[in-house]
């Protein structure tokens, strides 16, 4: 479980940190640091595992039916990334404490940061691909929150949205890729996938799989042509950029490249797609970075370029190139994080990031300048820095590959060119900011930052130097285990050292250095050329065009179907349903009626049926006179409940009858606020709808006839056999509701409660005009609350409640139960409202039954949860028999508590609905009392 907890801690920590922020800003930072350290401490004892050459896999069942397990994996690569995430994360926590101003909410920032950290750890420690993808998407979401941290800034919101859109689409493609991988291999476990490289590469689905996975990788790691989101994500606070855009988020893409390297690499498709994209990104990023006047913009494009470099290395598909790729991941994380932090310090202390105004800062902050210089030298690949070592390896590999391909000389030439650009923009970062004359019109006078803000930069810069000078004694063991985990094979022969003698790679380095310096000296004509030719080229334009086109076409399609008329929509829906419903009958061979023996027709049934049909047709005939239609539809409902009585469904009959009463009262109350008559509609429309109704009615009748005349297999036997021994009740319908299908019932009462609360919300502050007189011009009623009715109903109330209690209690064994008892209770109470008015009732009964609903839902849920305490599944019921004196044998079932919950929800919901609509009336009639 250790790995699982290591991932879980930051997620739990996110909540703790938000709470701690109430104690103060520093407390929040301390809490975040403690959470990060806790996760680190959990992983620390496991460090020995990868160094011994082992892979730790921990699995826990999650959804075993779907083949989904919580599976975590710790090998060299995972350890390297976990170290980067937590280690640099710790530095970021410290840095952000001083970076964020008093106006920024500390709790929110650290909470988002923890969410992101947990998601990132989840990616690198996942053994299961689907689980990896879930964390992958979580990083997209939490980075959205982090980038848009300054919500009041438009560019922050836009940048966050763009990042989410691009990486989200990539995540979607990645899901497809993983599903294909799982299909090919037959498992989502990395251990299996990594060992099945030959199978995957030989599979006909290899190319689609590769393309989908690479789409995910390239969007996440800002590879061309998806690179454009990264510069816009620079609207984030600088600690976020330093964390997400140097060491973590964008590295998730190249992490996946490394992770799946044994499974997918080694084919021409991989070589051309990955190294081609990497090369294009490397060149484009390095080129654009030189011309960015924004300090963070320069770093963003430099990041894009370095990510391209790493991608290119993995694309080359030689073991040594992969080692160099892993090495550069480490080096880039250290120097780029420190450079972002330095840029943040400059922005923080000078008030701008515009390099055209930032000049000569050396005088004001020499210490920061020194740190930035070392880090920038590492970025340029100057000897003695870590960046030099991996760049040498990169150049050597490019040289190596060039000899085996036609036209291969192009690759070393192009990477040297990119190297020259890197040197040029690194010089610009230093020279333009710290020297180059005097600062121009800065908002504040720059000075050195607080002591502790520099510490994270110092640590990283020292690492750059130490690794650069003595690689064999520092980074070598870590690199060895991470690289061998990447390759899943023995390591190639390589030697980490500062000096390899005079070789082609050194010559390339020197050439790049010289060209870079020359380029920087020629910067003014280059800037002018760039401003004239290329400045308006922006991938964002394409993105926006695509986005606009997408929105336009989707709204065109929507308008094609939906003209904003519900009436037309319902018409189209019904026609479509009819066409779909009737079409299977056209080529059906079987006769309409089956051979099941029917019941004989008796006179009473015929009469009742005729009454129903007449009432239904009258309702339609009279529907424009709404009040009359309401009366006749009541007759229909009554006969429907009689139908349930006739055909052995006493529970349904009781329910239908009580619902009928409640419904009619509801519609009467509402009708008061609506026109009393319906306007005439056009004749053609009436005839058209009549025809559709006829077709629909015949279809339903024929279908019912076809079913009713056929025998069928039923699963009823199980319920009838187990109702008494298993559920302890004789009323099978009730036992199904509260026991066999109790979970469904829980859902249904929740829906009912939601409907009631929704109605409550809709009616809030609703003001409706209604006529003071009825349609004939008479006053509604002179005697609002007739005395006789009031007195009689008051006498009846206890009786009615007694009946309800009786129905509730016997429901398990006789027709009845929570639903029916609840409705009966509501009817009894509503009659009181009718007889006495809301104001009178308000003095005696709370008109806010929401607590009753809540109590009901809580009771039903707790009854379900209680079975967990006895190691049974949710909502397992139990029952026993008590022999009470006088009463005799009395059954007590846990399902009865559940039924009581149902009862409470039904009473609360129906009362809430009716009382709230009724209150609309009283606020008109009796203006003294407004609920």
């Amino acid at each position, binding site marked *: 479980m250790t790995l699982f907890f290591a991932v879980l801690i930051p997620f739990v920590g996110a909540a703790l940190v938000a709470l701690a922020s109430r104690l103060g800003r520093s407390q929040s930072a301390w809490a975040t640091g403690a959470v990060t350290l806790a996760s680190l401490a959990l992983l620390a004892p496991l460090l020995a595992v990868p160094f011994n050459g082992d892979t730790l896999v921990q699995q826990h069942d999650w959804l075993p039916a779907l083949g989904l397990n919580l599976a975590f994996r710790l090998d060299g690569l995972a350890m390297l990334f976990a170290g980067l995430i937590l280690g640099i994360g710790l530095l970021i926590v410290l840095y952000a404490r001083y970076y964020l101003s008093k106006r920024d909410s500390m709790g929110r920032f650290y909470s988002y940061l923890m969410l992101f950290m947990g998601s990132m750890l989840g990616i690198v420690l996942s053994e299961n691909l689907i689980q990896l993808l879930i964390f992958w998407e979580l990083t997209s979401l939490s980075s959205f929150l982090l980038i848009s941290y300054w919500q009041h800034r438009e560019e922050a919101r836009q940048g966050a949205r763009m990042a989410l859109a691009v990486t989200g689409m990539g995540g979607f493609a990645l899901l497809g890729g993983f599903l294909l991988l799982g299909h090919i291999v037959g498992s989502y476990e990395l251990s299996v996938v990594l060992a099945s490289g030959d199978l995957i590469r030989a599979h006909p689905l290899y190319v689609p799989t590769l393309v989908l996975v690479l789409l995910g990788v390239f969007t996440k790691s800002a590879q061309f042509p998806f690179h454009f989101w990264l510069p816009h994500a620079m609207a984030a606070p600088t600690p976020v950029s330093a964390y997400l855009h140097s060491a973590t988020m964008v590295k998730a893409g190249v992490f996946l490249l490394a992770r799946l390297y044994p499974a997918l690499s080694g084919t021409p498709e991989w070589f051309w797609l990955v190294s081609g994209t990497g090369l294009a990104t490397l060149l484009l990023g390095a080129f654009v970075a030189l011309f960015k006047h924004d300090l963070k913009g320069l770093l963003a494009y430099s990041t894009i370029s370095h990510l391209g470099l790493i991608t290119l290395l993995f694309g080359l598909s030689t073991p040594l190139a992969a080692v160099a790729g892993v090495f550069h991941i480490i080096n880039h994380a250290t120097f780029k994080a420190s450079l972002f932090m330095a840029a943040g310090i400059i922005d923080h202390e000078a008030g701008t990031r515009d390099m055209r105004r930032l000049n000569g800062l050396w005088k004001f902050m020499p210490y920061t300048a020194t740190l930035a210089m070392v880090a920038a030298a590492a970025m340029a690949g100057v000897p003695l820095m870590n960046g030099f070592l991996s760049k040498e390896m990169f150049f050597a590999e490019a040289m190596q590959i060039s000899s085996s391909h036609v036209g291969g000389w192009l690759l070393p030439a192009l990477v040297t060119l990119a190297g020259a650009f890197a040197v040029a923009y690194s010089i610009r970062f230093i020279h333009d900011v710290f020297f180059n004359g005097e600062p121009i019109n800065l908002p504040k006078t720059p000075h050195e930052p607080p002591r502790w803000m520099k510490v994270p930069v110092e640590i990283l810069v020292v690492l750059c130097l130490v690794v650069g000078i003595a690689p064999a004694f520092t980074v070598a063991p870590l690199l060895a285990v991470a690289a061998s985990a990447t390759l899943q094979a023995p390591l190639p022969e390589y030697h980490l050292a500062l000096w390899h003698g005079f070789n082609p790679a050194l010559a390339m380095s020197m050439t790049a250095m010289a060209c870079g310096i020359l380029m920087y000296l020629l910067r003014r004509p280059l800037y002018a050329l760039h401003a004239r030719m290329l400045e308006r080229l922006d991938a964002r334009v394409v993105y926006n065009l695509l986005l606009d086109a997408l929105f336009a076409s989707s709204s065109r399609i929507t308008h094609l179907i939906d003209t904003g008329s519900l009436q037309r929509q319902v018409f189209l829906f019904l026609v479509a349903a009819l066409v779909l419903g009737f079409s299977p009958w056209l080529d059906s061979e079987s006769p309409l009626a089956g051979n099941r023996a029917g019941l004989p027709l008796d006179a009473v049934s015929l009469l009742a049926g005729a009454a129903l049909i007449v009432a239904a047709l009258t309702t339609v005939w009279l529907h424009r006179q709404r009040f009359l239609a309401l009366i006749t539809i009541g007759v229909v409902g009554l006969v429907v409940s009689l139908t349930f009585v006739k055909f052995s469904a006493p529970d349904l009959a009781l329910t239908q009858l009580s619902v009928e009463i409640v419904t009619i009262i509801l519609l009467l109350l509402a009708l008061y606020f609506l026109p009393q008559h319906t306007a005439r509609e056009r004749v053609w429309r009436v005839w058209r709808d009549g025809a559709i109704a006829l077709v629909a009615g015949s279809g339903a009748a024929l279908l019912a006839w076809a079913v009713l005349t056929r025998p069928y297999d039923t699963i*009823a036997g199980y319920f009838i056999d187990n109702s008494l021994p298993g559920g302890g009740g004789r009323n099978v319908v009730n036992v199904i509701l509260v026991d066999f299908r109790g979970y469904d019932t829980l859902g249904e009462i929740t829906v009912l409660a939601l409907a009631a609360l929704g*109605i409550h919300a809709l009616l809030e502050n609703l003001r409706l005009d209604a006529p003071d007189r009825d349609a004939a011009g008479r006053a509604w009623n002179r005697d609002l609350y007739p005395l006789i009715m009031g007195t009689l109903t008051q006498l009846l109330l206890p009786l009615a409640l007694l009946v309800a209690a009786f129905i509730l209690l016997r429901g398990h064994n006789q027709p009845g139960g929570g639903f029916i008892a609840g409705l009966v209770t509501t009817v009894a109470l509503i009659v009181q409202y009718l007889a006495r008015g809301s104001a009178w009732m308000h003095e005696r009964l709370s008109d806010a039954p929401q607590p009753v609903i809540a109590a009901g839902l809580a009771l039903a849920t707790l009854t379900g949860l209680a079975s967990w305490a006895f190691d049974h599944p949710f909502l397992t019921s139990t029952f026993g028999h008590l022999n009470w004196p006088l009463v005799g044998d009395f059954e007590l079932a846990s399902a009865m508590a559940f039924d009581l919950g149902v009862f409470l929800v039904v009473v609360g919901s129906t009362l809430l609905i009716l009382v709230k609509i009724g209150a609309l009336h009283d606020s008109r009639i009796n203006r003294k009392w407004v609920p």
Partner: protein
Amino acid sequence: MEALIALIIGILTACGVFLALRGQTFPVVLGLTFLSYAVNLFLFAMGRLAIGAPPVIADGAAYTDPLPQALVLTAIVISFGMTAFVIVLALKARAELGNDHVDGTHYDEEGPR
């Protein structure tokens, strides 16, 4: 008897469909009520018709299928919740839009017969 029930289901469906296609809110709510009668009866009839065989365990008795009954029982209560929600939506629409047409925009013209 089966034919009568089938006929009733058909009539209720037809009435429901016709009213659901009207332009103003109140008839549409009535139409939905009709449709829920029809659907509930139809679901109930899927357990076939039986007289004098309620699914309450007793010695030596015959039982009809209890499962459709359980389904329909909750369906009745839920359709009440739905009717209530829709009618309140209609009230809200009338208050906010000033008319009771389902499109929220206009009354259908008083066409000549």
